């Protein structure tokens, strides 16, 4: 980072905005100015590094899992080691990477700027949330060192209350991470409600903000229930309260209800911000106003609220009563409608646009492809009788990797490549990162598509060993995982390389109309020199390409339409 800071060209101000002397990276120096920063942008950058680190740790674990499964029988991981590995892979990926991934890393960076505010409402709490993440991560790592964890990321009782791995350490870690997530959500809700500048009405907010707002609702309402569930689990192990223990009169299925009351809404914590990113990308790179703004905005809220009513679909075979299963199945499908609305609106946005295949758009297009598969396979799982067959097989594993990895991670990369020039002031190499994006796409499908087939044919999940009939699919999947690994390392490597070699980024390289592109790249400490001009966030015609700036500048002939 030092290189950027010292580069004199950066302080010369970026084209397209008023010349600015310092930016948030150069504003103050020294590690303390980062460790104790209250600037949402720096906190966002720290979150970004941290969550990416977690992703790589989780990814390495995934590669170990896949390597073990290349042949049936034991290769190099004992069954116990395998169990530890998938548990930690799942726990690290969900709690350390994907839940904070988009909202806390990218959201923190852009949310206040998009809104036209100087910062989030509670900067101290924001920093606190980051450190809670760090502590939570330390606990999880401690759990790995002191005895490991082999419960699955779901912590089902009574397995989790009887195993002799360090469940208490790990659940304490997740408990802390839960608070980190609550603080982020709470901060965002308050910021969006109380920090909007004049002119920034609800319906002038970019869809990414609607999405993070909807996400924040879930974070605030659902995460506390995870907190109490984990506390009860800790108490169960420590003093035997018996609430989840059958031999003490308790009920293990109760635990599943508690767990999924949080964890189903949590999957929408993962996907909603991703959908928000995609809405920004599709409109920008089609150079067209987003289609059906209000429908897309409302559908985020609808997904957030409906998402609370469907948790029972993870428990169709648990001994749940037939009546509740029916109810949950029905409600599950209701979430597909707002998701469908979004997908179709993105397509309609592309219609008659001017579509660029810049890296973020490549990710956005692969998001539509992969998320459709992931979402549509959710329909198989939501259908009662079919889920009985598919539950706890690789079909489910494939489903959730398609939505989490094919959906959220791809959108994360899309957002990262989109806001990268804004965050760092550097442009990365376009061609190589497009290639990396395509590599990720191919590797991903090769990894997870075969899992649908073997899952439907009965291959159970969480298996360290399997029957020879599934070998072919496992081998495809393992090969895919390595392709994916290489492509991902390339994708991130290209970005990192741009810090040293990339050309200086203009204020608005893509031609977006949202506020974060009005300030220089990287933005100044206080975000805006003057109160930003709030207009329609998708009026892409309000900016036009300028060869001299190598970016987009204000279009003098633009007249805001009455329509929006």
């Amino acid at each position, binding site marked *: 980072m030092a290189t950027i800071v010292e580069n004199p060209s950066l*302080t010369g101000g970026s084209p397209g905005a*008023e010349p*600015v*002397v*310092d930016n948030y990276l*150069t*504003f*103050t*120096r020294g590690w303390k*100015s980062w460790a*104790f*920063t*209250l*600037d949402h942008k*720096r906190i966002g950058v720290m979150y970004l590094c941290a969550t990416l680190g977690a992703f790589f740790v989780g990814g390495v674990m995934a590669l170990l899992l896949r390597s073990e499964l290349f042949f049936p029988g034991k290769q190099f991981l004992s069954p116990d080691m395998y169990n530890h590995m998938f548990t930690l892979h799942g726990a690290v990926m969900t709690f350390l990477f994907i839940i904070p991934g988009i909202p806390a890393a990218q959201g923190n960076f852009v949310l206040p700027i998009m809104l036209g*505010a*100087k*910062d989030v*409402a*509670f*900067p101290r709490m924001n920093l606190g949330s980051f450190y809670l993440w760090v502590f939570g991560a330390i606990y999880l790592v401690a759990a790995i060192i002191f005895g490991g964890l082999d419960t699955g990321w779901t912590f089902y009782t009574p397995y989790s209350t009887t195993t002799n791995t360090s469940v208490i350490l790990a659940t304490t870690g997740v408990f802390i991470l839960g608070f980190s997530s*609550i603080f982020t959500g*709470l*901060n965002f*809700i*308050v910021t969006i*409600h*109380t*920090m909007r500048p004049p002119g920034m009405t609800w319906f002038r907010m970019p869809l990414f903000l609607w999405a993070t707002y909807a996400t924040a609702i879930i974070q*605030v*309402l*659902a*995460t*506390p*229930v995870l*907190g*109490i*569930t984990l*506390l*009860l689990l800790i*108490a169960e192990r420590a*003093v*035997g*309260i*018996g*609430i989840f*223990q059958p031999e*003490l*009169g*308790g*009920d293990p299925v*109760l635990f599943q209800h*508690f767990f999924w009351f949080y964890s189903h809404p949590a999957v929408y914590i993962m996907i909603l911000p991703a959908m928000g990113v995609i809405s920004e990308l599709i409109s920008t790179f089609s150079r067209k106003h987003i289609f059906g703004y209000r429908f897309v905005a409302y559908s985020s809220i609808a997904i957030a609220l409906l998402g609370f009513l469907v948790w029972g679909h993870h428990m169709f075979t648990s001994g749940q009563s037939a009546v509740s299963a029916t109810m949950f199945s029905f409600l599950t499908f209701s979430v597909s409608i707002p998701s469908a609305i979004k997908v179709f609106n993105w397509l309609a946005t592309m219609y008659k646009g001017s579509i660029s295949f810049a890296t973020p758009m490549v990710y956005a297009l692969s998001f539509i492809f992969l998320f459709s598969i992931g979402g549509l396979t959710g329909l198989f799982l939501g259908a009662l009788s079919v889920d009985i067959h598919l539950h706890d097989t690789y079909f489910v594993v494939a489903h959730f990797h398609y939505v989490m990895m094919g959906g959220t991670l791809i959108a994360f990369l899309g957002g990262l490549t989109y806001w990268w020039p804004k965050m760092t002031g550097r442009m990365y190499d376009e061609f190589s990162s497009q290639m990396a994006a395509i590599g990720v796409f191919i590797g991903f499908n090769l990894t997870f598509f075969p899992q649908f087939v073997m899952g439907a044919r009965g291959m159970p999940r969480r298996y360290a060993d399997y029957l020879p009939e599934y070998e072919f699919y496992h081998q495809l999947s393992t090969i895919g995982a390595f392709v994916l690994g290489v492509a991902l390392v390339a994708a991130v490597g290209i970005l990192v390389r741009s810090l040293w070699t990339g050309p200086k980024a203009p204020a608005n390289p893509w031609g977006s109309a949202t506020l974060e592109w009005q300030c220089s790249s990287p933005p*100044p*400490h*206080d*975000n*805006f*020199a*003057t109160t930003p001009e709030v207009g329609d966030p998708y009026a892409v015609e309000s900016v036009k390409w300028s060869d001299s700036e190598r970016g987009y500048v204000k279009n003098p002939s633009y007249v805001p339409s009455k329509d929006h």
Partner: protein
Amino acid sequence: MSTADVVSPVTAPGEHHAHSGDGHDHGHGHQPHLAHHFESYEQQFDAGKLGIWLFLVTEVLFFSGLFCAYVVFRVLYPELFAFGHLFLNKELGAINTVVLLVSSLTMALAVRAAQLGQRQVLISMLVVTIACAFVFMGIKYVEYTTKFREGLFPARYFAPTPEALLHAAHMIHDAQSHGAAGHAAGDGAHDEHAADTSHGHDAKAGDHAHEEVNKNGLTAAEQAMVDSVKVPANAGLFFSIYYCLTGLHGIHIIAGIAAISWILVRSIKGHFTPLYFGPVEYVGLYWHLVDLIWIYLFPLLYLIH
């Protein structure tokens, strides 16, 4: 800080970062306690207020898990609750309710004083509130230690002592002999006399000093009464729930004491003005919520039939 003295056009004069860190301290110069990223006290107050309400929402959902466990087990195993509550001390519960209500009143008065800028009233009201909180915790301490002595632990370690069972037997007996006809034996019904008579039993050593006692320290008649008590299977579950609910509530009281003390220190330093009293109000809201939860806990745990 090489660039700090270059005033960028981004920051208005007087709003600049004269302070440590990267300037996020209160930079409004003549406007104490107004953070730099807010435009006005009102905006700051509104943000804080919305924030604290959202926080209370998370608290409600946090507790909801325990209430949920309570409801499920109460509906499925009512006998556990009818049995378990025999061991709870209704008087102490009622006293604690009143103590918390008083503290709620003083907290509300403290907020009012802060709004009006009456520093002395504010300080004294906060002191009374903290005092009430300590009284509450003291009484809880007495209750817990009694339970531990009587072997009334969470499920895995639940092992009521003969004394505890004798006490329960008397309560059941009293309830029946007072003609609560509709109640089946052992379901723990009792009327208001049960409480009076039960005081007597604590003094049993005196009453029955001359009689022979067995290894449990009980006379034959008492042992018979103890044997007549049907301890429902998994009776410890009630105590698990009791400890979880009251324990978590207790932790919130302790957190409340810390928060109010912080407010107290700040009011002694004279930080609060009619323009800036947000923290008092926020802590007050939190404190009222803690009270609110107790308002439900008291009948749910202590006053069951």
